[in-house]
């Protein structure tokens, strides 16, 4: 067992989840990263450049917004952490800024990435443009169709978008192809993984880069309310990067409920779902041991979610550990519920969220019925991970 929830052990395990299950061809790269990421991240010059870019380029700190009408509707004090106001429209850029600065210090010349909803692809293409690095983004053919605006943005930014036609043609397969590409060019290429998945040290590294979200929440909540801690933090989870960032500085604060919302697709038991903790079992995918959706024979099951960013059959090892230890509360929202959540936030607060984020909004209406919160709980923070521009086609189809 790890002493602290936020830190994996030296082999990259959170409890029984994590590790680095990679072919030998990737060993040198991953080992280089493992032995150097903490030192590089702690260098004063690195921190200075990272913090300056977060401030002046990304636009941090992002506001912690008191959602008055939403609060009145539900009877809690609901705060929205506005990651949707980050440059490029989602939290993903916190991590890509960090990783490109790291890649430069490792002497890498070329960046590859996978993307589902396209937000991580856009965030990666953006930092590559910023630093003049070659950028190749792998994206499932199905996602290319449903997230066309982000494909256009990546191209505008000079990235090469490679359509992935294997398997379910979504995020899982895009990740496979990115890893294969890394095997083929291990020396010059750095792989910027977009979520808290992959072999150690990726889950920890990405969580640390995203932890700025909860660091800011703590300070801002204190300023606004005088309270040290919220009663609950709510975030959507696919691989789990925005949730990892929003939970990070509350992981060892036992009184803060950490509520992770998975994509139930057409319904948890419909056969078309991406609710990994409810449907998954222990297994190995993309280099780490975690919970994943698979057959009895260990073949990965193709998930379903209306949201491309949550359409992933696994979950980061940190989250699997939060689930295993019951430190995290895992809920889910269906496609339909998240569409309703998106509409609700749009019309009560004038904020159109990304489809991924809409899952976190959607559970508000079920928290009482499910007795998730205690009577005395008042202050809820929702990580508003991204904005909905990319999802307008889907929203219009369902409006």
């Amino acid at each position, binding site marked *: 067992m790890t002493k602290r929830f936020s830190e994996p052990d030296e082999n990259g395990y959170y409890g029984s989840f994590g590790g680095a299950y990679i072919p030998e061809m990737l060993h040198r790269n991953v080992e280089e990263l493992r032995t150097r990421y903490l030192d590089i991240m702690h260098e004063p010059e690195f921190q200075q450049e990272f913090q300056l870019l977060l401030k002046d380029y990304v636009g941090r700190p992002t506001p912690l917004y008191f959602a008055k009408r939403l609060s009145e509707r539900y009877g809690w004090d609901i705060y929205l952490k506005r990651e949707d106001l980050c440059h490029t429209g989602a939290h993903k850029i916190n991590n890509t800024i960090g990783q490109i600065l790291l890649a430069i210090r490792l002497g890498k010349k070329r960046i590859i990435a996978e993307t589902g909803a396209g937000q991580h692809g856009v965030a990666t293409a953006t930092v590559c443009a910023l630093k003049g690095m070659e950028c190749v983004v792998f994206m499932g053919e199905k996602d290319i169709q449903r997230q066309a605006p982000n494909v256009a943005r990546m191209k505008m930014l000079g990235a090469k978008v490679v359509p992935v036609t294997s398997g379910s043609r979504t995020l899982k397969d895009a990740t496979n192809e990115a890893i294969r590409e890394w*095997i083929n060019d291990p020396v010059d290429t750095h792989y910027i993984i977009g979520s808290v998945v992959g072999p150690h040290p990726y889950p920890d590294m990405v969580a640390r880069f995203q932890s700025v979200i909860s660091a800011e929440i703590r300070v801002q909540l204190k300023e606004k309310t005088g309270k040290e801690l919220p009663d609950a933090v709510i975030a959507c989870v696919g691989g789990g990067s925005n949730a990892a960032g929003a939970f990070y500085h509350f992981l060892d604060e036992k009184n803060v409920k950490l509520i992770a919302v998975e994509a139930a697709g057409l319904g948890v038991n419909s056969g078309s779902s991406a609710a990994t903790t409810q449907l998954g079992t222990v297994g190995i995918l993309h280099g780490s041991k975690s919970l994943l959706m698979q057959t009895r024979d260990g073949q990965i099951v193709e998930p379903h979610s209306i949201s491309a960013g949550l359409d992933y059959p696994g979950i980061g090892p940190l989250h699997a550990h939060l689930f295993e230890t019951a430190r995290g509360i895992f809920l889910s929202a269906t496609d339909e519920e998240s569409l309703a959540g998106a509409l609700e936030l749009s019309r009560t607060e004038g904020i159109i969220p990304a489809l991924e984020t809409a899952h976190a909004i959607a559970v508000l209406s079920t928290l009482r019925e499910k007795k998730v919160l205690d009577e005395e709980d008042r202050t809820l923070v929702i990580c508003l991970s991204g904005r909905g521009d990319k999802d307008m086609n889907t929203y219009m189809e369902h409006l």
Partner: protein
Amino acid sequence: MSRLEKLFLKKNKGILNIYFTAGFPELNTVMPIMEALQSGGADIIELGMPYSDPLADGPVIQQSSQVALANGMDLDNLFLQITNMRKAISIPVILMGYMNPVLQYGFEPFCAKAAASGVDGLILPDLPAHEFETIYAPVIKKYGLDMIFLVSPETSNERVMKLDALSSGFLYAVSSSSITGSSAVYSGFDAYIDRLLSLSLKNPVLVGFGISDKAGFQKATAKTNGGIIGSAFIKALSAGKDVKAATKAFVSSILQ
């Protein structure tokens, strides 16, 4: 003495190891292909256990895996097909695949079943050395199986020595930094092989990845003990209607 040990005592040059995906092209072609490989002159058979997400494999083996899975191949079926293979097959047989299906089957039941079927060794490219040493090595030993690790041009000398020490049977030298089925020529190949051989390894060395024909096989095995061919053989199986004839023709094309 293990079958692999015996083989390398008898023959230490030009060992031909051929890979194919179990359940490809048809569900029940495992034994016919193995028999044809043996009679055609292959020295080792590497039987691939299909997986939905084979990270180290190129398009040819990915596709053969998808076909095999669609045909209904799983580990239960594979063990059913090979349970009596030693009545017909005398050359070493190695199972190659990814950790996840093996974990779901149960690592120990998997090793027990493999050993009982007459399987000689395992290649699990995504099994880390650390987890092997701390968790799985005693199980492998208990069932008398050889564990074969991969090394690549990026593997340091120190690590080659470590992986050689953890391996038995042979050491799998990946010919370049690539996934399987790549046709790219790696200019540093000779220096890489010389570096490996200078380390006085305890295991024989077989070269795999990117070998597709006789010329490639001869180049890869000029200094090493032998080579492994996978994708090119899968392609040959895809083209031929009669798997036995296609297998024999392919093996001849390499050996003659």
